[in-house]
């Protein structure tokens, strides 16, 4: 990752002939990563963990995209699940109803990448799925534009309330859609597009969407999201924002261009949230219903961004991964001391002098976690019940103890073991 990172920092060659290669390379890397996880990792871990793997990817998309708004621009959106819902329902409806129109059923018509090797490599079904995800993303982006517009006038916390209100409106409207989803081709044939748009399953949720989502698609989109987020962070606007985001007055003094950038950040974040919604809608084992996509889901994503570090892309991605796995881990908590030991050694290597205090803190945390684990086992308490309580508590403690989140605006590789701490990838005043 470090070498790729170094390449983006270096000025790109001006020669027209090679520029396209530089923009293509990261994309190829993204495809390679997705393929590796899909063909390499998936067979080894079984269906349950494959689902966790997909959930991690979807949450990475959500957290990293929300970070574009909350981490870079100093705005604060707490309605990200609303964009996810817009994208998810759009994608689900397109796939479902188009499948009926084209094939007369809503079964899987995907190929290898969608988990049906018998159908060949890339099929019309795959195209439909990807297309409907992109369409979901686009509609979410339109919604993002509308919601982002007030950011031209409103201060951060007011805007937060607008996004929350938007998310709630989306949720209620979806709940009011018709709960009768036709399951016969003949019924679907008779429906107009407008009618289809109104039959979204209501409070019961949209069921019957074919399960196209696989680790390949999830991680392909996740990798693209990461790439775009890095590009934004490294753009001149991104850097300007990171250096002033805590001072709205200064931000305003920088003029209209930055306010426009705020709206654009909103649109971009909404687009990826919409795609994440599309992937979620086509995933096996998930329920696409309005209750799942209320403001509690938005808060989940906010927690990932805040804990990982507002402005840190890798931090948000890491937090998304950890918080996705954590509920499973909490169900039967393993010993944490081996991990604690590794972390202590690592910290001592990264920062030799200041590391001593950090190592002591880590040791204390490790001991405390072991104590909690022992107490839970002894009392027969299921720690998974306490998941949200723990998240919430860590959010509050984090704000008091380390308000910038785990990594602040830095990236994980800005902390190098066996050497002095490198300057942040983005210089921050």
């Amino acid at each position: 990752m470090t070498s790729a990172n170094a390449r983006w920092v270096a000025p790109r060659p001006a020669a027209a002939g090679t520029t396209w290669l530089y923009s293509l390379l990261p994309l190829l890397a993204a495809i390679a990563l997705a393929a590796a996880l899909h063909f390499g990792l998936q067979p080894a871990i079984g269906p349950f963990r494959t689902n966790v793997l997909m959930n991690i990817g979807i949450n990475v998309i959500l957290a990293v995209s929300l970070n574009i708004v909350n981490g870079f621009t100093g705005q604060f959106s707490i309605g990200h699940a609303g964009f996810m819902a817009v994208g998810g329902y759009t994608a689900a409806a397109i796939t479902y109803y188009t499948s009926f129109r084209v094939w007369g059923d809503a079964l899987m018509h995907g190929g290898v990448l969608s988990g049906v090797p018998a159908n060949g490599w890339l099929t019309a079904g795959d195209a439909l799925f990807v297309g409907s995800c992109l369409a979901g993303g686009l509609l979410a982006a339109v919604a993002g534009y509308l919601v982002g517009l007030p950011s031209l006038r409103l201060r951060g916390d007011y805007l937060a309330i607008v996004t929350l209100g938007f998310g709630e409106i989306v949720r209620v409207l979806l709940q009011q859609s018709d709960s009768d989803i036709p399951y016969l081709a003949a019924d679907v044939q008779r429906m107009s597009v407008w009618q289809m748009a109104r039959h979204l399953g209501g409070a019961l949720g949209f069921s019957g969407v074919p399960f196209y989502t696989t680790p390949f698609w999830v991680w392909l989109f996740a990798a693209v999201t990461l790439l775009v987020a890095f590009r934004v962070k490294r753009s001149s606007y991104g850097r300007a924002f990171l250096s002033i985001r805590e001072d709205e007055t200064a931000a305003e003094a920088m003029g209209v261009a930055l306010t426009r950038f705020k709206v654009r950040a909103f649109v971009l974040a909404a687009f990826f949230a919409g795609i994440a919604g599309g992937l979620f809608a086509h995933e096996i084992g998930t329920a696409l219903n309005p209750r799942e996509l209320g403001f509690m889901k938005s808060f989940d994503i906010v927690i990932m961004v805040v804990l990982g570090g507002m402005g840190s892309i890798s931090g948000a991605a890491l937090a998304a991964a950890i918080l996705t796995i954590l509920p499973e881990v909490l169900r039967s908590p393993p010993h944490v001391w081996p991990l604690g030991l590794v972390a202590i050694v690592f910290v001592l290597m990264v920062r030799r002098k200041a590391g001593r205090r950090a190592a002591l803190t880590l040791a204390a945390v490790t001991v405390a976690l072991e104590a909690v684990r022992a107490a839970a086992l002894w009392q027969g308490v299921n720690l998974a019940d306490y998941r949200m309580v723990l998240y919430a508590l860590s959010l509050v403690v984090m704000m008091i103890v380390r308000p910038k989140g785990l990594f602040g605006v830095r990236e994980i590789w800005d902390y190098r073991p066996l050497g002095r701490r490198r300057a942040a990838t983005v210089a921050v005043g």
Partner: protein
Amino acid sequence: MTKLLQTLVDSIAVGSLYGLIALGYTMVYGILQFINFAHSDVFMVGAWLSFLVAVRIGGQTATVEPSVAKALLVLLTAMVCCGALGFTIERLAYRPLRQAPRLNVLITAIGVSLFIENLGQLKWLFGAMPQPMPRLLPDRPLFALAGVNVNLLDVIVVGTAAVLMLLLNWIVFGTKLGRGMRAVSYSPPTAALMGVPVSRIISFTFVIGSCAAAAAGFLYATKYITLQQPAHETWIRLGLKAFVAAVVGGIGNIRGAMLGGLLIGLIEFFGAAYLSPNLRDVYVFAVLILVLLFRPAGILGRATVEKV
């Protein structure tokens, strides 16, 4: 005509509760300029504490005899406990962040909200199941107006809310303490130079805001008889509507919060009665967005320029 009057009665009853909750939001925003998300949770705790105390002293739902004395005891217990809760929240979570960027305080508030909400759902606290509230207050049709029954309970709810609002209005505008609160909300450092104990005033603000929310919780549980769970489906949503009321009325403005509460009650219930009953949340949040876009200072708020 009957429908219109009935809707009016309902919207005033619920609107006055929104107003009572909105007071807490608006006072904290007026002084510290942040949205105290945890205020909804104090409201929830107020309702559930009322339930727990009511069951303890009144026995189970069906058998309980209405008793004003018991109801008052329940109300006061809920208010005192929630006052203490509000005090603790400010002390532990917000005070360490007095100098921090506003965004961090907002995140902390969300954290505190999630914490209380999820803690409440644990089975050794309030549990995740809805519960019936014992009927502590007498209810009977009081009089009929053009075919609409005005119930005693509605009158009690609105009356209690009105008394509490007047009390609060008097505290803020008629006492020395209130003068201190208004001074702190204008400028904390200048207030400090006048000898106003800023931290104590902030604590006090949280305490009385939380007391008002607890009273609203008690009244809501008494009026609607059931206590719903999970919290984010009901209590938090109600609290958010109260916040909308505060914004609509003009955030930071005490009288605006009361007016906004009534207004949101009217919008919600008339929308539900005459347009579509399922979209009541949509009306409220649509009003919020419209107000923020076209009159961000609210109805009674004056437009203020951000201090540079």
